[in-house]
């Protein structure tokens, strides 16, 4: 069994699976249950300043979207930071850390945007023996209206400023948690880097309305006839998160900045994908909230088996796919594939045909006996048939060998060539 021991910015944990700062990490009871189940670490749910705790709504806090069989695909929430007294949290953190020395315990923080507030909270947590802090610049709902959370995360200058304060007033490793509710994720990560952050973590949740109640005509989750936007997470956000992780990992200005990957990690495979794109570890929330803490056991066994099969160490996986993330303009325009349907696996549902005939390139033929075949002379290799087929691996994309003639274009498959040198590119023609 592969060694999954993780060292993320000096914080050690028996595996790279941490629970993200969220309801599952709000108190000792939950965190201890998580550690018992096998989680490598937790980021304790965000603490605020000393004083009267925040209050939460007492109506529904979560909204969701579902796939077939009511499988939860996306969840949003309008819950605020911890609503328990600061001292209660600090006492519990200290107790848990002493009891679970081998696990990572990081404290998430969100206080008003002034140096004194940050200095004060950092001073108060020092005694807990926690392994590090995570700055919550991400939550898009509620706290943002009070100038915190994503209201900070959307202004790179603020991120840099607060990060500097934290590094100045604390010796603890500092992770800056980023909001995806911004047009270019590289800017806030660069700011965190300039401010001296030891790492960034992303993504926090995405602004969202999950559904509209068609009887009450209000967004869900609905509180007394009104709704507000909440933070969206779960499997549905994974593609957005993966892209943002990759953008930071391949940005020359932040290259090498450790990343804690967050966003829809549900299985070991999701985690491995984040790691391959450059994340040093992953944080999970929705999968645990959907299935309970036990899901980590599948993540551990799955990642371990994968690494063993590949003969790789965990460190070999981290960033392994980063160099293969590129810009469109560098994609090989002479790479030609054709869809191929395995007749042995085909169950003749015809979804590939409907998709291709109605919405794509009319490249699939259907016979009277419902045999579906690809018309190579029409197939542009868009992959839509692969994506709509209900049978895994029934339709595959087969690469045409170099020198073969593409029946669609009549041209031979040539060597690598991309848009930057293509004759149709106006900037090439201008030269």
């Amino acid at each position: 069994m592969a060694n999954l021991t993780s060292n993320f910015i000096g914080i050690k944990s028996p595996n790279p699976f941490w629970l993200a700062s969220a309801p599952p990490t709000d108190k000792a009871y939950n965190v201890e249950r998580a550690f018992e189940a096998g989680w490598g670490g937790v980021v304790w749910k965000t603490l605020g300043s000393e004083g009267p705790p925040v209050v939460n709504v007492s109506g529904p806090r979560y909204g969701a979207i579902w796939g077939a069989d009511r499988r939860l695909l996306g969840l949003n929430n309008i819950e605020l930071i911890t609503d328990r007294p600061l001292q209660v949290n600090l006492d519990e953190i200290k107790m848990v850390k002493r009891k679970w020395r081998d696990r990572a315990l990081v404290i998430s923080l969100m206080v008003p945007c002034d140096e004194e507030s940050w200095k004060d909270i950092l001073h108060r947590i020092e005694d807990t023996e926690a392994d590090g802090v995570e700055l919550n610049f991400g939550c898009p709902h509620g706290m943002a209206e009070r100038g915190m959370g994503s209201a900070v995360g959307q202004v790179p200058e603020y991120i840099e400023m607060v990060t500097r304060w934290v590094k100045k007033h604390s010796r603890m490793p500092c992770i800056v948690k980023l909001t995806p509710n911004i047009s270019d994720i590289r800017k806030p990560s660069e700011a965190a880097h300039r401010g001296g952050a030891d790492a960034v973590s992303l993504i926090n949740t995405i602004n969202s309305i999950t559904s509209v109640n068609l009887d009450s005509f209000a967004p869900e989750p609905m509180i007394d006839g009104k709704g507000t936007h909440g933070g969206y997470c779960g499997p549905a956000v994974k593609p957005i998160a993966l892209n943002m992780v990759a953008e930071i990992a391949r940005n020359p200005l932040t290259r090498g900045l450790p990343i804690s990957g967050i966003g829809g990690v549900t299985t070991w495979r999701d985690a491995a994908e984040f790691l391959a794109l450059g994340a040093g570890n992953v944080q999970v929330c929705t999968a645990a909230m959907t299935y309970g803490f036990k899901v980590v056991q599948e993540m551990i066994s799955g990642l371990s088996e994968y690494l063993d099969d590949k003969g790789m160490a965990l460190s070999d996986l981290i960033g392994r796919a980063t160099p293969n993330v590129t810009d469109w303009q560098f994609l090989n325009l002479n790479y030609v594939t054709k869809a191929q349907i395995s007749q042995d696996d085909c169950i003749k549902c015809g979804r590939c045909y409907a998709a291709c005939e109605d919405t794509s390139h009319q490249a699939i033929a259907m016979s009277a006996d419902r045999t579906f075949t690809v018309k190579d002379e029409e197939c542009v290799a868009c992959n839509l048939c692969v994506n709509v087929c209900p049978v895994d691996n029934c339709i595959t994309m087969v690469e045409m060998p170099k020198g073969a003639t593409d029946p669609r274009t009549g041209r031979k498959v040539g060597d690598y060539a991309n848009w930057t040198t293509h004759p149709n590119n106006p900037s090439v023609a201008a030269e």
Partner: protein
Amino acid sequence: MTNSPLTPGVAPARLDPATIQAHFADHIPAFDAHEARVAADRCYFCHDAPCMTACPTSIDIPLFIRQIATGTPDAAAKTILAQNIMGGMCARVCPTETLCEEVCVREVAEGKPVEIGRLQRFATDGLMAKGVHPFTRAAATGKKVAVVGAGPAGLSAAHRLAMKGHDVTVFERKAKLGGLNEYGLAAYKTTEDFAAREIDWLLQIGGITVKTGVSLGGGVTLAGLEAEYDAVFLGIGLAGVNALALPGEDLAGVLNAVDFIAGLRQSDLASVAVGRDVVVIGGGMTAVDAAVQSKLLGAESVTMVYRRGKDHMSASLYEQEHATSAGVKIIYGAAPVRMIGKAAVEAVEFTKGGETFTLKADQVMKAIGQTLTGAPIAQDGRKLTKRAAMVWAGGDCATGGEDLTVTAVAEGRDAAEEIHAVLMGAGA
């Protein structure tokens, strides 16, 4: 003294009433909303779906299942009923395992089809429970159409004709409407008087006058109907029963399976007399329905004997398994030779592969097929042609298709469409 499965001869109440009641409970229970949602989620919404092609009434199955999945089961019901006004009964009695569900791509892929029949029942039951009849009549055409026979074919034709604005009179030989829906089929497939409830609901369309106790030659004649009405639809079924033409067939205890089932459907189950040792001769759905229900009533032994092999049996493999799991023994490849007995039957002699054997029997049910009696219009082989002048025929009495409820509904509907086209001058 009460009877038991061991009571000799033909006797009622071999089991206590509660047990009989339980035996005849809904054979495939209705889905609740959650079960329906889970089942509906399995549908792939196939292109040019094989299930739809396999349905004799061409119900848009992927569409109605998607309507269930998206929380609009009443819309699903309308999709079904627009093609098949007896979609509720068909959901219960269709041999889906040889129709839509047999060709479901998930049957091909996993051996577990989408449960189309049960989903159809979920949708249609829901709409009927609300008392909603979703169709209205077109403006009156002033045309009058006679429908003879109130089985699935006749009622389907009557409904479609009434919907088109014609005035319809239905003539039925028996006291109740429904044909085999009411007098045939296994009771556990159509519980709680569903056949009658469905007809009450169907007649809500209006414009249909019903006359019972009337048949061709028994109150009306075809010539008379042709004179009085603009068109006539015959859905008269197969009223005759094939005889074995073997010695001993007239012994007491030898009866037609269809008569046994009709009696059972119209009686308090505890009062239905059944033999201790029952032999059913035949291999169709009627044979299975008679055999299984005999067993459920408490017969000690029930044996179905079919002259050909398992694969030739017109009852599906699913039905055969249903019979054997109910405790019916099936003997294949054996032909009856004679019934043995003094006043009442005591045994049946069979021949199989050159050897003879006898089965003890105090009740013998014949289920070797029904036949057309009388031929008011021209025949094509053993059945009526589909049209002669202004007379149409459909259902079991007419050529084409299998003798299934769903086929009868389709033929009644299609004849009505044709009649409408001809009456309105749009067709010949």
